[in-house]
């Protein structure tokens, strides 16, 4: 069975790489198969790991507990299971997403969307500000607190010449890049120069990102080539 899996994986890998020569039915078959299996598998996992344990099981337990409560045979465990009935509220709101399918009732979808946006914004705004603005600003300024001899810091905690250069470069980069995105003032004279330096910093950033992207894509290829050579060609011995 494992051998069969290796051969199927090798066939599909070669189908995908055949696109490098030109678009062809083998490539399209493998592409559609990958998309279909990914979505199908994702849905099954979401049902088994999400819907069943988080919604179906607690709700069905609560309903059977309610029935037991009604018939009079109750225990403290059964009473606590009754709390599961409250899950009806989030489940009902979640089900309202399907109202989108009905033209007459699609306005109902606004309620779960409103809850999601309200919850998302309320949680995200303070945490994002803290993580991406305040912490980053602190990290940009903080090194200057360790530059001796102007600041009273123990010699072992003082920054080296290279670190000082890095800290100054960082501040220049931040100011110049922000200036490039500052459109309330016309980019002329010193502002123009600052924004041009900002463009240089941005280009270096994009260059680093592009280089890393190439590295990442190559890693995927190396992994597949390694699989084809070591596992697929390696399986020939077991077959012949």
């Amino acid at each position, binding site marked *: 069975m494992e051998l069969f899996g290796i051969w199927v994986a090798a066939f599909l890998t070669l189908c995908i790489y055949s696109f*490098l*020569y030109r678009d062809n039915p083998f490539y399209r078959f493998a592409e559609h198969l*990958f998309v279909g299996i*990914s979505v199908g*598998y*994702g849905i099954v*996992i*979401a049902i088994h*790991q*999400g819907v069943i*344990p*988080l919604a179906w099981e607690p709700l069905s337990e609560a309903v059977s507990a309610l029935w037991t409560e009604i018939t009079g045979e109750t225990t403290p465990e059964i009473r606590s299971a009754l709390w599961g009935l409250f899950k009806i509220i989030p489940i009902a709101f979640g089900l309202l997403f399907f109202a989108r399918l009905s033209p007459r009732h699609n306005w109902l979808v606004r309620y779960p969307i409103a809850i999601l946006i309200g*919850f*998302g914004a309320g*949680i*995200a705004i303070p*945490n*994002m500000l*803290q*993580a*991406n603005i305040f*912490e*980053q600003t*602190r*990290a940009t300024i903080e090194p200057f607190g360790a530059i001796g001899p102007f600041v009273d810091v123990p010699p072992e905690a003082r920054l080296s010449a290279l670190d000082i250069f890095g800290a100054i470069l960082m501040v220049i980069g931040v100011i110049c890049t922000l200036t490039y995105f500052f459109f309330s003032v016309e980019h002329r004279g010193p502002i123009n120069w600052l924004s041009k330096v900002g463009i240089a910093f941005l280009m270096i*950033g994009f260059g*680093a*990102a592009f280089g*890393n*992207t*190439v*590295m*990442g*894509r*190559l*890693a*995927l*290829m*190396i*992994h*597949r*080539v*390694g699989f084809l*050579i*070591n596992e697929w060609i390696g399986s020939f011995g077991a077959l012949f």
Partner: protein
Amino acid sequence: MLEKFMNMDRRIIFILVALVVIIPTLIPVRLPITVSEPTQKLYDFIEELPSGSTIMMAFDYGPSSLAEPEPMAKAVMQHCFSKGVRVIGMTLYPNTPTLADKLMRKIADENNAVYGQDYVFLGYRPGTLPVILGMGTNIANVFETDYAKTPITEIPIMENITNYDQIDLLLDLSAGSLTEAWIIYANTRYGLKIAAGVTAVIIAQMYPYLQSGQLVGMLPGYLGAAQYEKLLNAPGDGTVGLNTASFAHLLIIVLVILGNVAFFIRQEREA
């Protein structure tokens, strides 16, 4: 000649790239590896953890991007098991549970780690934000059972673990932007220490967090995996991948230089 070069069939480049990947795979070459600061920081952090500490590993990558995070996971888990550090696995990707479960069991078997005592895999729960935030209050509220459906109250490793307060580090093995979500919600809100093992595509995005200390350490792509393997003195998939990648990078650098030179020569001729 110049025109011919500028209009070269791209498939020739594909063949060249394929050759520089295939040849080093067939004839392995060991190139020197220098350990970078982000990798060293993560290694040192785990090295200093006392036996019995707990780290959480989030397998936030899919089957299409496992080339880089898997060697990282192997190296870090090997390190943890050798030091008696317990590992709790989980994922925010619906396509990953089977992959991650299989990987954890394989590495655990190689290191004689026992399921439930040295490691556990909790599986997947839908909804990124509610999962990250929910575990900050009570992990059992989010994962009532592990991936094998065992109630987590019956799993020894989870006995004294309620929420992030009992987790010493979260290592997010990510192929997307989920590391940022962990930083924004788990680190900022709950003070959970976070490290990242990311694919090369998102390395540049992570450096600001590393510089600010919001990330304890980082494994950048194949490079990070290879460096960690070097620190463990146990070369593995990361080392093999990095050696092969080095030849491909060299080819790409040469092609970029040639392309630029040809471009400027043509520009000058046209002028």
